[in-house]
């Protein structure tokens, strides 16, 4: 087996895709833990509504945009992993697909980010 015809790990884009996949996966998992706790207050409306008013704060809205990026990247890169697993020949396009999904994640985050952050500056929602 020579490196030319094998799929030996060579770093570069695949390495960064892998590292980012782990980091975003870890962070999304941590958010799920927090999310289970905040939703559990739903039987005490005053606490639940207070928490969701707090989520309207600009810092937590930025956190929300970060979650959007983590979700988008992890979801799209997950599809890339499945693609490589089930169609091993597609590893040839691995780099282009990574650039594609990364750009799409950024695009979705920017568009979603504007929608998420806008109410804080425009007001009216509180």
């Amino acid at each position, binding site marked *: *087996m020579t490196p030319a*015809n*094998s*799929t*030996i*790990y060579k770093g570069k884009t695949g390495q960064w895709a892998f590292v980012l996949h*782990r980091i975003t*996966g*870890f962070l*999304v*998992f941590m958010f*799920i*833990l927090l999310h*289970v*706790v905040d*939703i*559990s207050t*739903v*039987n005490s*409306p005053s606490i*639940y*509504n207070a928490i*969701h*008013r707090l*989520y*309207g704060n600009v810092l*937590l*809205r930025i956190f*929300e945009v970060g*979650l*959007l990026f983590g*979700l*988008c990247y992890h*979801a799209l890169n*997950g*599809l890339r992993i*499945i693609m490589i*697993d089930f169609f*091993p020949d597609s590893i040839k396009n691995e780099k282009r697909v990574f650039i594609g999904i990364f750009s799409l994640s950024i695009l979705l985050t920017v568009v*979603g980010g504007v*929608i*998420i952050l806008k*109410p804080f500056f425009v007001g009216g*929602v*509180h």
Partner: protein
Amino acid sequence: MAIRTLSETTGRAKTSQRRSRQNFETWSWLFMRISGLVLFFLALFHFFIMHILNDVTATNVTFVAARWKNPLWRLSDWLLLALGLLHGSNGLRFIMDDYIRRPSTRVAVKSLVYGLAGVMFIYGTLTIVTFKG
């Protein structure tokens, strides 16, 4: 390691003579792919509804009560909870196996993570089941 196995099975390895024996890691691999695909739609759609179509401050108790009147939304939220925690704790298992070298520390951290995921699963399930709008 997984990459080498892949090239072995697609390369010149004698696949015809090999009896396929699925062990825990094979099922774990398959579970991650299937749950990942389901979560792709569930999680992104959930985020879209709760954070893009509706502002986070608008998703108050009244909003949840209206939404959870339909048991299908409760089911969808419960699926997100169950699959998210399982997919996430299995992902954390890979990370813990990679970075925690001392066996005693690994057992301790794994117990903590699995315990926390289990408690969160029960806690979340109770929240979804016991809520009365």
